[in-house]
């Protein structure tokens, strides 16, 4: 299951939901807001999500992972709203009988989440500027024409 939430992510509580006496391996991934990106000093990040489609697309990703690597439990939570440096923006947890599947499924989920979910990230820089990540040309027309 994938959840989009404005609330603080609690990785410890989330991993407990993946406990299973048949699981010998757990792999967890967390994306933290860091203080640098593309050479700029980052103060905070703002995440915007279109939740209905983020959730349904996230469900597809987790089903794909479970099909590729059977017998796993997987869960993902993505934050929205304003986050400070050090905050957890996304958490993925996978438990499975063996570690190979746990690592591969966890990696698959975060890789797909980053490119498929309708979620956007606006960086606020120390110098007062801000910008949408991966959207360099979104405003090219605006700058040139508008």
């Amino acid at each position: 299951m994938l959840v989009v939430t404005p609330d603080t992510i609690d990785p410890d509580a989330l991993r407990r939901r993946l406990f299973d006496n048949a699981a010998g391996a757990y792999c967890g991934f967390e994306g933290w807001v860091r203080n640098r990106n593309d050479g700029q000093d980052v103060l905070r990040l703002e995440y915007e999500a279109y939740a209905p489609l983020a959730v349904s697309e996230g469900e597809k990703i987790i089903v794909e992972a479970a099909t590729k690597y059977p017998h796993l439990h997987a869960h993902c939570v993505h934050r929205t709203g304003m986050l400070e440096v050090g905050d957890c923006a996304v958490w993925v947890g996978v438990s499975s009988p063996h570690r190979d599947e746990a690592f591969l499924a966890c990696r698959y989920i975060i890789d797909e989440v980053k490119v498929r979910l309708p979620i956007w990230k606006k960086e606020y820089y120390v110098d007062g500027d801000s910008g949408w990540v991966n959207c360099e040309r979104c405003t090219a027309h605006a700058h040139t024409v508008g």
Partner: protein
Amino acid sequence: MKTITVRYFAMFRERAGVSSESLRTDAATAGDVFRATRARHGSSEPLAHCKVAINDEMTDWDAPVSDGDTVLLFPPVAGG
């Protein structure tokens, strides 16, 4: 002519100044809607970098649009 509801997200919404608007258009595909609204969302991103949904289903830019559809225009995503 069709009536299409267009929803803008993130950078597109900021640029358009509205999150949603109604469009009278002869657009045949989702891609046509993107191009017809370029003056609104102000983006020169290639379509391949952006995503689109019609009536809350992810789809392709070639997907046909019908009268009454809601087209969601997604700028390049950046989750995680």
